[in-house]
C-alpha cells in the first residue's frame, strides 16, 4: 500500500479564506442594514392603531377590572391578528355620541363599538361591515310579565340614551303606542332606572338588550321576544375617510370572517341569551356578502 503524505497547506490559500470571511461578514452587515431600512408596518397611515370601543355594554363591549369582553372586543382581537405585525394600542373608551367625532378628530383610528351604519354617517366616515345585524327591541323588568306585544307598553315610560339611533324610533311610536320616551345619558342610567322602577322598559338594539338580560338575569330582566321597532341596524367598524385601500383590505377579511364558524362561535360566546332565545338567530343577525359589499368603504350606494 503506497504511503500517503499529508498535502502541504499552501500559503496561497490564506488570502482566499480571508476573502470568504470578509464576504460572509459583508453579507451579514448587508442583511443587518436591509432590516434596519425596512419600512415600519402601517395601516390607515399610522404605525400604531388606536381602537375606540364602549365599556358598558355587556355582551358587546364590556370592561370590568380592565378585563374586556363582548363581540366588539372579539372582532377587535381578530382585526389585530389579521393586521399583525401592525402594533395596536390598548383600546380607548368612547361614548355613543363621541364615535364619529373621535374618528374625524384623529383621536381614534378605528371604532368597534356597536356602531350602526347610516347613510348620514357614511358621508362623514367609512365603514367596514356589517359584522352583525339587529333590530330595536324592548327590555322589561320582572313586573312586566304580561308585556308580549307593542301595545302592552301603552302608557309606560320607555328609556333610551343619548347618541344612539334608538331615540328617534321611540319618538316615532310615541303617538301610536302612547308611551313616553325618557332619554338619559348612557346605558347604565337606563338600567338603573329600570331596576328602580323609574321606567317600565328600556329600548335599544336587541343585541345590546340581550347582553343586559344576561348580565341582570338574577334581577329578572328579559327581552320581549319578536317585538321590534325602527330601522334595521347594521354594526360596522368605523374608519376615517381617505384610506380606501386599507378599508377594502379589512372588508375582504370581514367577508371571510363572517362566513366562518368562528363568527357563529363568537356570537354564541358573547350573547348566549340571544342565541338561546331564538333558534333562527343566524338568519336574522348574520350579514350576507352582498350586504357587506353594499355598505363597506363607500360614500353612498352606487346605482
Amino acid at each position, binding site marked *: 500500500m503506497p504511503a500517503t503524505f499529508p498535502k502541504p497547506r499552501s500559503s496561497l490559500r490564506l488570502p482566499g479564506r480571508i476573502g470568504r470571511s470578509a464576504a460572509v461578514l459583508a453579507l451579514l452587515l448587508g442583511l443587518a442594514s436591509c432590516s434596519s431600512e425596512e419600512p415600519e408596518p402601517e395601516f390607515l397611515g399610522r404605525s400604531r392603531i388606536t381602537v375606540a370601543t364602549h365599556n358598558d355594554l355587556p355582551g358587546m363591549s364590556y370592561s370590568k377590572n380592565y378585563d374586556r369582553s363582548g363581540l366588539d372586543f372579539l372582532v377587535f382581537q381578530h382585526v389585530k391578528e389579521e393586521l399583525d405585525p401592525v402594533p395596536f394600542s390598548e383600546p380607548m373608551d368612547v361614548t355613543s355620541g363621541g364615535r364619529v367625532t373621535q374618528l374625524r378628530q384623529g383621536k381614534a383610528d378605528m371604532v368597534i363599538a356597536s356602531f350602526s351604519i*347610516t*347613510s348620514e354617517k357614511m358621508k362623514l366616515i367609512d365603514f367596514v361591515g356589517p359584522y352583525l345585524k339587529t*333590530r330595536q327591541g324592548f327590555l322589561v323588568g320582572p313586573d312586566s310579565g304580561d308585556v308580549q306585544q307593542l301595545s302592552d307598553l301603552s302608557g309606560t315610560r320607555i328609556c333610551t340614551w343619548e347618541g344612539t339611533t334608538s331615540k328617534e324610533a321611540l319618538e316615532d311610536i310615541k303617538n301610536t303606542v302612547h308611551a313616553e320616551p325618557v332619554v338619559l345619558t348612557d346605558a347604565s342610567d337606563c338600567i338603573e332606572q329600570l331596576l328602580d322602577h323609574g321606567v317600565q322598559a328600556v329600548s335599544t338594539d336587541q343585541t345590546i338588550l340581550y347582553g343586559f338580560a344576561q348580565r341582570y338575569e338574577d334581577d329578572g330582566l328579559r327581552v320581549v321576544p319578536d317585538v321590534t321597532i325602527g330601522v*334595521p341596524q*347594521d354594526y360596522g367598524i368605523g374608519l376615517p375617510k381617505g384610506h380606501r385601500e386599507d378599508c377594502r383590505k379589512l372588508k375582504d377579511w370581514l367577508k371571510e370572517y363572517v362566513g366562518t364558524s368562528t363568527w357563529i362561535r363568537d356570537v354564541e360566546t358573547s350573547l348566549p341569551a340571544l342565541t338561546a332565545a331564538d333558534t333562527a338567530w343566524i338568519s336574522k343577525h348574520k350579514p350576507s356578502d352582498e350586504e357587506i359589499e*353594499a*355598505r363597506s368603504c363607500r360614500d353612498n*350606494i352606487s*346605482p
Partner: protein
Amino acid sequence: MSGDPAGKYSAQTHGDSSQAIGFVGKLFLSIFVGDVVEFADRAKHWGGWNWPPFLLVLLLGSYALISAPDGPPHQFVYVYLAIAGSLVLALGRLAHPKSDRLARHWRVLMSAAAVMLAVAATVGMDYLSDHGEIDITGRTSLTPRGEVTSGSELSLVVTGPTDRAHLRLKLTISDAKGDQGFCEPESRYAAQLRDRASTRVEEVRSGRTVDFPLGGLQGQIEVQIALRTNEGCQMNVSVAEAALHD
C-alpha cells in the same frame, strides 16, 4: 405739440399726447374692425357664384335651429356639429374665392359639402322633432308622497300627449331616515303599466333604468309601482328621469 397745418375741414390734435391718441385709434380699428380697405378690395373680387351656397347654408342652418324641439341636449350634438361644419365650409369658400392654394375642383367640393351638411342638419332636426327623446320628468306625478314602507304601492302618472312608442323611467329610492339606518341597498321595486301585465319588471334597484313599450297607448300614462325593502325601513321614492322615445 400740434400736427401739420390743418385744412378747412380736417381734424386736429393738440397737446403732448396727440400722436399717441392717433396710434391707439388705428390699432383699435385694425384689431376690432380689421383692415377695412383690404376687406373692401377683396369683396370686389367675390364672384356672384360664391354667394348662393353660403346663403343656402345660412337659410338651412337657421331653419334647423329654429325648428329644434325640446329634449335632452345630447341628442342634438350631431345636428349642431353638422350646422357648424357647413357654416365653416361655406365661409371658407366665400373668403377664398380664387385662392391659388385651392384648386377649382376643391372649391366646388367645399360648396357641395357645405350644402349637403346643411341639408343633413335640417333633415336630422326634422327627424328629432318626430322621433327624438322628450324629457317628461317635469310632467310626472308620484303618489302617495312622503315616506313609504315595504309593500307600499305607488302610482306614477305622466300628463300630456303620448307622442312616442316607449317610456324610459329611472326612480331613486333613498332612506327617509338617513340618520337611523341604511336600507337603500336592499330596496327594490316592481313596476308595470296599468292593466298591462306583460310590461311588468321586477327587482329593480334605485337608479336603474327601465323601459316600457307603450304600444299605441293613448291619453295619460300610468305606471303602478310596488316597493320592497327590509322590515322597519322607511323610504322616499322619486323620479330621477322620465323620457319618451321611439
